[in-house]
């Protein structure tokens, strides 16, 4: 990818750098939202959960701001080639980040519900484990974005498989709990909702990785297998 700061128009450099930075800022905020939501759920911390729910508007307003900035760049600069791909990927990335924010809010809502339930013996270990992995995945996806690193992007996209497996594990576990003791049904359902939200976050993180590859290589790697994705990235690098 061409460096952003080499346009003849300095203002254009600034505009593009600006949306790139705002995405990272939005990413940082979203990461924090996930972390707080998981902690709130695991620790039964209602105050923290409420804070996550209240903070979601910040994620939303960043999405609107960045969207508007992208509109401006398209209207004024008619970006081409790598610049065009950057703007397109930013528009897509912020949609995924906003949805991640919504999922974090969902987890926080489950945390509020679960705080009223009796705590399980394992202290929501399954959510903690899945949550940590998902959080790392989001972090690494944003890292790949920041460094425009396609190799890292493919690796992180691959992590989604592991997340999906862990999610299935949580589902099986919850079904077992519910069969063994119907009194746990309410709690188990809440946990399932939270796990589902985490699994969705993993999908969004994978999307971001795909956009990184599109931006750098100009190749659309959506809806293809991980193996094909590796091949696409390996070529011409």
């Amino acid at each position, binding site marked *: 990818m061409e460096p952003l700061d080499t346009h003849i128009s300095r203002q254009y450099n600034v505009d593009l750098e600006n949306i790139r930075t705002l995405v990272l800022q939005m990413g940082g905020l979203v990461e924090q939202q996930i972390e707080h939501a998981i902690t709130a759920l695991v620790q039964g911390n209602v105050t923290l959960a409420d804070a996550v729910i209240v903070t979601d508007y910040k994620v939303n307003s960043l999405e609107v701001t960045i969207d508007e900035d992208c509109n401006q760049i398209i209207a004024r600069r008619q970006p081409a*080639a790598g610049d065009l791909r950057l703007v397109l990927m930013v528009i897509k990335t912020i949609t995924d980040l906003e949805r991640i924010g919504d999922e974090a809010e969902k987890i926080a809502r489950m945390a509020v519900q679960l705080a009223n339930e009796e705590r399980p013996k394992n202290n929501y270990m399954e959510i903690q484990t899945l949550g940590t992995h998902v959080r790392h995945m989001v972090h690494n996806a944003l890292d790949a974005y920041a460094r425009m690193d396609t190799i890292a992007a493919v690796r992180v996209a691959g992590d989604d498989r592991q997340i999906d497996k862990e999610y299935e594990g949580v589902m099986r576990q919850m079904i077992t709990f519910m069969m063994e003791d119907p009194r746990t049904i309410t709690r188990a359902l809440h946990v399932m909702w939270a796990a589902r939200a985490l699994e969705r976050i993993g999908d969004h993180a994978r999307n971001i990785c795909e956009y990184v590859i599109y931006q750098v290589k100009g190749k659309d790697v959506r809806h293809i297998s991980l193996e094909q994705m590796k091949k696409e990235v390996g070529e011409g690098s």
Partner: protein
Amino acid sequence: MSENITANAMGLLKSEAKSLNFYYGEYQALKNINLAVAEKRITALIGPSGCGKSTFLRCFNRMHDLYPGNRYDGEIMLYPDDVNILHAKIDPIEVRMRIGMVFQKPNPFPKTVYENVAYGLRVRGISNRRKLDEKVEKALRGAALWNEVKDRLTSLAFNLSGGQQQRLCIARALATDPEMMLFDEPTSALDPIATASIEELIAQLKEQVTILIVTHNMQQAARVSDYTAFMHMGEVVEFSDTNTIFTNPAQKRTEDYITGRYG
């Protein structure tokens, strides 16, 4: 040069430059150009000033013959005849009948609207009034000008607006039923509305003729063309379908140019 596209994928070819070199006296302005022009498609030539795109365009109708010391080397094939139009035995006048040209600034003759369009036909020896009327109307309609000038065919061409004059020049070129049309920055002297109407006209013309267009306006190349060649320092750096050039060019020099970076 990087060719991202094979001639096979382009369908029928109308013309093709093969190992073309061109010299203004000692100065070599074009270096080993190989470029295929697809039939009834629009091919755009883009590149910074002095890159040789206009020089290249002018080779197609032997414009350089008008000045001494200019020298061609290599071939420009015209299909389906399979003749090299640069060959010394080929009559440049005949080439210009078959390959019309429209310039940056509208340059109508100091004659009436009618006579501007009829000029090429008279040179061809057509003098039958009815036939001339018919051909003039057809050319003016082809250039989307007929409705605006049908009542002022006898007024001087200079009385038309800039955009109309340019369409008149297009009609003049169309009158001899050319197989190919060359446009050298056809809209750089026009306002956005006139530009849009010329672009629309070019898009319609490709149903009948093959078009090669030089433009400084990259968005124009992106809007109207099917294929784009990026030229730099007398060479074709990259040639591909327009979509690829503007979303994912293979060469760094192309990307730098179309994204407005220091080359």
